[in-house]
């Protein structure tokens, strides 16, 4: 059933799924779970890809899809209060006429919910200039697993005391169930220029990214698709990416018209200096939307090629991009996989896609092994195991690569302070201890539109 999946390679079966319509019902559900000592897991659209919204230990899944109202928009102060089930792009659409938007824009934004974004501290292509979800949340209303209803943070800046909002955002639903979110709305830029730089060599594309940063240019977004991904996308979307190229960079620059124009010229110069075959600038919003449609639906396109694929979320320092991409290629060849690369190049957040046949247990094991090698390399480069999808149940076994047992002990104490009985989203983020090297579930058929 659907709620066993979240687009990751994990599966877990809940006892039941409940759809509350208001905060009081959430409190009642938590009380019931408490009484029966049953695990409880919050879920938005289930697009997280890391198993964060799966009921690893069974129990009740609370689906927030019916708590999907925008409760208040304060345009002048650029704030909105929303329920957790509001779909990310619906909020931006609802405030567009006011010249505002909600800046975090995961590629799954047409499906993913703001509650889910808060749980995972989601990013997106425009994170490069605008930051992740945590940078856009002022306050939260949260139901704690003890049944207490609390308000954290304030609509006004600099709330007094510890930054509980900052702690709860990105806690992957292990500290509380978020029932209301006060978000920051961002003014839409006056001008956006979208560039498509086309390269005959992957190295030239990655070197361009390094050089753009080195020259002090901060694009609003800087995405890369390699040749393999481009061909998959073109077969599906016809976004206009040249299928004979080795890589493209999709770059947004924005701001005042005068700034965006100058930046577009500067970015184009850098790409040409690195042997870009061609740099196209979208002439209008229609062209721009088409290019971005290609990017945001890339995972859907990949899903058409193979029923199962494994996506990683590693992060590396940007200057290590060329070396890392070369290494990924080498790892893929050694394990006999085609690995596609489509990712947030500007902030070094990789999404290597490994296609494999789910019917073969041996292939699955090799896919995981290849993926682990990639992650290991990211860490050696000074990076991290997840940039925006969260640890969930998929990457907790990798956490010891970054953190010590003492670090986990502290994290556990923080979790236990709010989630003392461990009923809320159990067995996530922090490794259970001992050996936990295997992935428990079989991979699932993919094919949804929900992705990075």
């Amino acid at each position, binding site marked *: 059933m659907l709620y066993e999946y979240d687009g990751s390679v994990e599966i877990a079966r809940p006892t039941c799924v409940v759809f509350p319509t208001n905060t009081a019902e959430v409190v009642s559900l938590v009380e019931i779970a408490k009484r029966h000592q049953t695990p409880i897991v919050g879920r938005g659209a289930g697009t997280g890809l890391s198993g964060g919204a799966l009921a690893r230990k069974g129990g009740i899944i609370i689906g927030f899809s019916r708590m999907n109202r925008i409760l208040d928009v*304060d345009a002048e*102060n650029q*704030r909105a209060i929303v329920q957790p089930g509001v779909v990310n792009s619906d909020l931006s659409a609802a405030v567009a006429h006011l*010249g505002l938007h909600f800046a975090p824009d995961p590629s799954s934004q047409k499906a993913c919910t703001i509650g889910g974004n808060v749980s995972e*501290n989601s*990013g997106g292509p425009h994170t490069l200039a605008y930051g*992740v979800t*945590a*940078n856009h949340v002022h306050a939260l209303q949260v139901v704690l697993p003890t049944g207490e209803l*609390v*308000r954290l*943070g*304030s*609509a*006004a*800046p*600099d*709330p*007094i*005391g*510890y*930054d*509980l909002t*900052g*702690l709860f*955002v*990105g806690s992957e639903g292990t500290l509380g169930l978020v029932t209301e979110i006060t978000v920051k709305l961002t*003014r839409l830029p*006056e001008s956006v220029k979208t560039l498509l730089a086309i390269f005959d060599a992957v190295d030239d594309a990655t070197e361009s990214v390094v050089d753009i*940063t*080195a020259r*002090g*240019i*901060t694009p609003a977004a800087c995405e890369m698709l390699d040749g393999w991904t481009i061909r998959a996308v073109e077969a599906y979307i016809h976004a206009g990416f040249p299928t004979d190229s080795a890589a493209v960079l999709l770059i947004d620059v924005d*701001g*005042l018209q*005068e*700034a965006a124009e*100058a930046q577009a010229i500067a970015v184009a110069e850098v790409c040409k200096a690195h042997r870009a075959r061609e740099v196209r600038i979208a002439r209008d919003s229609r062209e721009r939307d088409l290019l971005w449609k290609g990017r945001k639906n890339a995972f859907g396109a990949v899903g058409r090629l193979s029923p199962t694929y494994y996506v990683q979320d590693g*992060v590396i*320092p*940007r200057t290590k991009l060329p070396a890392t991409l070369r290494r990924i290629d080498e790892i893929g060849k050694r394990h006999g996989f085609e690995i596609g690369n489509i990712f*947030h190049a500007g902030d*070094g957040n990789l999404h290597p896609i490994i296609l494999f046949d789910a019917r073969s247990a041996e292939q699955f094991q090799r896919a995981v092994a290849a993926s682990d090698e990639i992650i290991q390399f990211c860490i050696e480069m*000074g*990076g*991290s195991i*997840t*940039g*925006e999808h969260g*640890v969930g149940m998929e990457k907790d076994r990798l*956490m010891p690569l970054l953190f010590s047992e003492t*670090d986990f*002990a*502290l*994290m556990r*104490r923080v979790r236990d*302070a*709010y989630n003392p009985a461990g009923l809320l989203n159990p067995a996530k983020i*922090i490794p259970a201890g001992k050996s936990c090297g295997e992935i428990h579930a079989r991979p699932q058929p993919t094919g949804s539109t929900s992705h990075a």
Partner: protein
Amino acid sequence: MTVGAQTVAARLADLVGVSNVITDPAQLTPYEVDLKRPSAAVRPGTSDEVARVVQFAAAEKLAVIPTGARTKLDIGLPPVRYHLALDLTRLDRIAAYDPGDLTLSVEAGCPVCRVQAALAEYGQFLPLAVPFFERATIGGAIASGVDSPLRHGFGTARDFVLGIDFVTGDGTASKSGGRVVKNVTGYDLHKLMISSFGSLAVITKVNFRTYPRPIESRGFIAQFPTGGAAFEMRRLIALSPLRPITLDIFSPRVGAMLSSDVAAKLTRTHTAPVPLSNDLWSLTAGFAGNDAVRARCESELTRMARESGASEVAVLADQLSHAWNRKREFVPIALASFPAATILKISTVPNRLGNALDLAARAAESSGLTWLAMARGVGVLYFVMFPPESEDSAASPGAEWRIRAVTAARKISHDVQGLGGNFSIPWCPTEWKPALAEWIWGPASPDFAQMQKLKTVFDPLGILSPGRYVGGL
């Protein structure tokens, strides 16, 4: 059970070397917090040494206050216990700087200005134009969460700190976050360190994202006969596509204060008149970009100033750094200028800032206090109130003025709560703290119980800055 002072010193000397333990009372004076002197100050040189010192303190139940350059130790409630000053200024290395990746890792005791100088060599900066700039350390800037004019364009530390290494109250070294710009691995415990005033853990190292320096920047000043007009201009800017990097409004009386000899001495700049009239309200904004962007900003800001009723408009280029430094040092200059000053920090959603200032001004005036203020465009107000200068306030501030300040603070705190805002009193004469204690961190926060849980996790024995933070945490 605690050991005698001599034994403590000897044990600390074992941990960090005898030359890094201070017990001479005269030398301990600078480490006083709210007139309370520690029995020793200890200067560890590595994070391992920090951990060992805290372990020792935990074993002996000694109360520890972490310090950097000691520029902001006035903030907070008086410590209920204070045995050890943990001086972090020997941890002053830039651990790693990767200009190509725009990332930086710095030890807590490194002065902010030294970091900025190192970044400037590569055309980069950290948006930490914090007060006490010449002395403040990275650890102090983060632990106090003190804000800077650049927050308008770049946000606060929570937006550009990538990770923190710290030592918890039981002496355990731990860390959170990392050194890449995007990272959702584990709980964001580093966010808790920001503005925790040394009550959760001792910060030993901070990882930042850095920023390329703007091509070129300018300062814009518009002056208005009324505060309402200045706040109206703020509103117009917020609704426009302009993205100023700073935006602060100053009340009358600030002009003279920032032009004074005291200000010149503090900012080590020549006494040139800061171009703010002493009788008018001023909106100051910084903007950056290429020639075309700057020209556009200048013309649009000028138009908005006129529409809002500005009487004077000026653009600063040559004097910018000079004026800018004084804007940055508003609080230190106010403290040096008015010894009996009580400085309130009030925050509201941006369009209620003018209301907050009005009600604060009314309360101060009805208590017979003079006031001046700086309001940041994002919704933060620093409200300085002090006895009229005819009252010879340079002398020890009298009980009568204390009572008046308490009356005003109580009223303002209450009214700010009505506006949905936050209130605190970061600075007041030390002797007044017991009388003002109830308001120093503002009204009790509804999420206080959740904060207490964290304090118990991070500092189970309650030895870190005990009693100093919100609600005596």
